[in-house]
């Protein structure tokens, strides 16, 4: 299998996010970037597939702060190659990034009969999970998102997927390769890589840098203004014995007309 995993860095919400002076972007002073969580799962699933069925894993990501750490970690986990697409990408939203990835794939002639492209099914700045479907459309391939299980059948060159729907419903799909899929959760949680291994990879392996032409790439939505969440009433903690708390609770419910 020729496995391509598309990665993206997103703002790390461990740091409190602040809106910048332009009211359109985040304040960069303390902003840190981290690999999008479902991309972590896509990477893990890619490595699992390689371990099960053989082949190679190529990790690709548009440049962003702290991306190198994420790519070295991908190499340490078992990716064979890691590409950084040079450029300033923060104004590009998912449709634009999908175009960037599709150009990367075309320029490097990556597409083959047994190619499977994985990405996270969503990101904190792409809750709709558009990137997979846009990319599938640009490449003329089948696409499927919110995937939680991937099996490959080499004889038919097909993958069998489990896709989650709301309300706990699940559907099984079969796609022939090449295809694009969005991973919601890998079979196993993303693995731990001893830091010594990552530090060693930093010394021995290289991240490949690549440029692609940006003409004609749409940046998708334009942000007009960012807002901080509005503060609503705080939660109230009821104190007392269980009986007292229960009594207060009943009072509140009847005051509000719930019971």
């Amino acid at each position: 299998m020729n496995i391509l995993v598309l990665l993206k860095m997103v703002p790390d919400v461990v740091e409190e996010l602040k809106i910048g002076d332009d009211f359109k972007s985040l304040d960069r002073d303390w902003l840190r970037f981290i690999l999008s969580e479902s991309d972590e799962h896509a990477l893990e699933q890619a490595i699992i597939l390689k371990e099960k069925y053989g082949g190679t894993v190529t990790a690709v990501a548009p440049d962003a702060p702290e991306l190198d750490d994420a790519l070295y970690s991908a190499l340490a986990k078992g990716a064979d190659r890691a590409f950084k697409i040079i450029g300033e990408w923060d104004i590009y939203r998912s449709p634009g990034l999908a175009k960037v990835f599709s150009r990367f794939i075309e320029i490097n002639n990556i597409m083959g009969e047994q190619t499977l492209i994985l990405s996270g099914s969503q990101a904190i700045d792409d809750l709709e999970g558009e990137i997979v479907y846009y990319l599938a459309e640009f490449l003329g391939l089948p696409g499927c998102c919110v995937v939680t299980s991937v099996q490959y059948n080499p004889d038919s060159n097909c993958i069998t997927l489990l896709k989650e729907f709301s309300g706990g419903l699940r559907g099984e799909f079969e796609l022939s390769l090449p295809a694009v899929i969005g991973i919601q959760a890998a079979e196993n949680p993303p693995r731990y890589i001893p830091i010594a291994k990552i530090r060693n990879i930093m010394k021995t392996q290289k991240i490949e840098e690549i440029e692609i032409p940006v003409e004609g790439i749409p940046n998708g939505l334009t942000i007009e203004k960012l807002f901080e969440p509005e503060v609503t009433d705080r939660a109230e903690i009821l104190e007392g014995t269980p009986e007292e708390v229960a009594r207060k609770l009943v009072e509140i419910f009847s005051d509000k007309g719930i019971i």
Partner: protein
Amino acid sequence: MIADIESLRGVTLETLYDTPEGRLIKSCIQCGTCAGSCPHGEYMEYPPRRIIKMMQLGLLDKVFDSDSMLKCVNCYACMSKCPREIHLTEVLLQLIKEQTIMRLPVVPQELQKALENSYRYGNPMGESGRKRINWMQNLDVPVRILSQNSQPVDVLWFVESYPSYHPRGQDTARAIAKIFNRLNVDFAILGNEEKSAGECGMLSWESGLAESLVDYNMAIFTKYKFNQLVTSDPHALDAFLYRYKMFGFKAKVTHVIPFLWQYFDKLKPMLINKLHYSVTYHDSCCLGRHNGYYEEPREILKAIPGIKITEMVHNRSNSICCGGGGGGMWLDTYFKSQNIERLSDNRIKEAIETGADVLAVACPYEMPRFEDALKVAGYDGKMVVKDITELILESMED
């Protein structure tokens, strides 16, 4: 009972036999005292004695493939009891543990998060580095931060992660700041520049993580001039005393409690409020067994008017670990899944049996562990956990 750590840098299991440490290991008489004194010994397929046997037989792979060393909480009990004085916890067990972690098919989630967080954020809880000084909010005494005022200082106080971030740890940090001020200690902290000393990496043994944190903190230390380093975390004390030395760290280091002991004559007259507590003291493994500070904490407690000390059955060198060391802090769920009783739950029963109403501690891991264990034991409200520095402050403040 301390290994010549400096000479061990870069030593692996393959080269261990060629070192003085390896020769010591060869002298093992297979008495099993180590296994017998280990708080998790009964759950280990390969306790220290069997590890040494397997090493002699060239069968260490079997040891790596079991999770025995994941259950080692680095309590130094085996090492302190070994008649051959083999530095089990300091050397051999670490190396075995490193291989164990590397080969685990799945690292327990909480431990994985703690290690990843320590690497990325410099603290195991995954908090923003920017919030490291948040414990100082509402503090009414001055604390100098070296990045804001880099004048040479006598004491560099290495606060560490639990005192910086954990709510009860923060209480301890504030108590220490107030006591240092009362004693006119010339001290300063690194503030947001500080990152975890890396002991959790060393002892759960993750050498790459430990090295990255050592590299980081060592670079920060070179920016400032200080006479000695004092830390509020016995685990950090261990890191500085036994690991940083491999990387050329030379400064004098101590923990807050032995440091305050040096100020005892000045401190004692300040302890004016009578505290009507019956107190039992839990010896932290790093402070007690590993560094021999058994009497200093007790003498300080005794100097507080009104305090009556009662000892637990296991005290001083026989103290039982709270289970937080060696990565145990993040393995509670894992142990539970294997029906292993939490060591803190075990230990709290001994504390309760003394009839004391305060459990005094000197390690920031112990506060959350024992407070939790009290709830589990149904003793919430009947006994409280306090850091020694909190008790000192209570006796000092108007």
